[in-house]
């Protein structure tokens, strides 16, 4: 069967699923699922029979995990959602990340207040990962405007990277039993100590698929007094980081994605630091083809003015077809596709609810 492209779109008013052929000419839309409830994280798990997950962050009745086993025709709640132990004192406020684990039914989940949960049965039960959730730093992390969220979970064998805002970058080398901060070179402009051991406002981290030692980070930049702390690169599994923001119009932004076939190609979407909107009202994705050494603007098809939206940390993704396309959702409810590796942009859906996250995957 030819591959199809599936998009799992989390919005302020529920989850949508878009589907298109691998030529990506047209997409159909289903949803909203979990209607009226914000979805901050989605996952298309195609390790075996494809499943789509979404975090339904219900302000009234608490957090739920939605799961579809029919590629987004229908969703049901899993038997339970992550929850802190009764005597912990913390209360789950949001679910920010869902990632597949090592086993076929293993899932990882990052939540607010920043903690990690793990499921071994596809989300029907969850156990808190105490190595990071009860880390000696955990009660010292401070919430940013978006809350104290664990938004990035990256797995590379037994090595697990976490991104916490504001907590910084943490790494486990033992499959999640213990974690250490790993923020050498990661700045925190608002902190008395500009390069602290931990406490940075990391926005997103990505590992190129073909080079696990290489990592890219969108950190909280945008401070004219402390330039070049926003877009960073590591070549040693995240042990140290250096700036690659030279040539960008702003080092502030939320998402960062890596090309699926070339670890030197990375994409960011710079925003103005004060407004967190497109610089000059002109949306532009920037691509580096040399690991951040230089940047090229990609704006063919975008409005040239009067567009002041935000793309949130999980609002940009890239498929892994031979000539990949990028996809991003905006806080104004537009879903854009950048065909030919972002050379040509067009709007797939004009008027969805405000979009929090977009994930793409190919399924048979």
């Amino acid at each position, binding site marked *: 069967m030819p591959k199809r492209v599936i998009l799992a779109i989390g919005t302020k008013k529920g989850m949508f699923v878009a589907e298109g052929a691998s030529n990506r000419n047209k997409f159909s839309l289903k949803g909203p699922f979990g209607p009226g409830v914000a979805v901050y994280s989605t996952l298309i798990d195609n390790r075996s029979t494809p499943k789509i997950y979404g975090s339904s962050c219900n302000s009234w009745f608490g957090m739920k995990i939605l799961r579809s086993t029919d590629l987004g025709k229908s969703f049901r709640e899993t038997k339970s959602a992550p929850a802190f132990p009764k005597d912990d004192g913390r209360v*789950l406020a949001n679910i920010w990340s869902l990632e597949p684990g090592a086993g076929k039914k293993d899932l990882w989940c990052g939540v607010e207040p920043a903690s990690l949960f793990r499921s071994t049965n596809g989300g029907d039960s969850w156990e808190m990962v105490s190595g990071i959730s009860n880390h000696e730093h955990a009660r010292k992390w401070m919430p940013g405007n978006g809350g104290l969220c664990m938004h990035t979970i990256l797995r590379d064998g037994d090595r697990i990277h976490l991104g916490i805002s504001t907590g910084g970058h943490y790494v486990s080398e033992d499959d999640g039993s213990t974690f250490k901060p790993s923020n050498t070179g990661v700045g925190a402009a608002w902190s008395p100590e500009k390069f602290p051991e931990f406490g940075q406002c990391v926005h997103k981290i990505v590992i190129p698929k073909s080079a696990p030692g290489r990592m890219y980070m969108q950190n909280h930049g945008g401070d004219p007094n402390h330039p070049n702390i926003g877009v960073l690169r590591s070549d040693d599994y995240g042990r140290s980081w250096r700036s690659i923001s030279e040539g960008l119009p702003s080092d502030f932004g939320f998402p960062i994605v890596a090309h699926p076939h070339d670890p030197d190609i990375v994409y960011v979407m710079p925003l103005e630091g004060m407004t967190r909107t497109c610089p000059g009202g002109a949306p532009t994705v920037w691509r580096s083809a040399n690991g951040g050494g230089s940047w090229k603007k990609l704006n063919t098809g975008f409005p040239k003015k009067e567009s002041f939206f935000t793309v949130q940390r999980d609002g940009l993704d890239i498929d892994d077809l031979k000539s990949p396309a990028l996809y991003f959702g905006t806080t104004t409810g537009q879903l854009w596709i950048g065909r030919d590796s972002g050379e040509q942009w067009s709007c797939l859906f004009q008027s969805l609810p405000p979009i929090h996250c977009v994930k793409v995957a190919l399924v048979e």
Partner: protein
Amino acid sequence: MIRIQIPGQLQQYCSGAKEISSVAKDIQGVFEDLENRFPALYGCVCDEGGNVRRHVNVFINTTHLRECNGMSTSLNAGDVVFILPAVSGG
């Protein structure tokens, strides 16, 4: 017997029932009863710390729980406990 009115959004967590009954003597007992019999429903009403969720309102007859004696508010036969989502939007 105490009657507990369940809002439409939560009836899926108690086999579709609009109302369930309890022999609890106080509000604490009502919530313990819910937790034992309908844990998913209880999780929608109370957080993992055991507190009523911020945007859920509980009334005993026509009086809001916050105007009563908290979890130890006593109940009498025939009382009706309403569980209602707060009005909100945007």
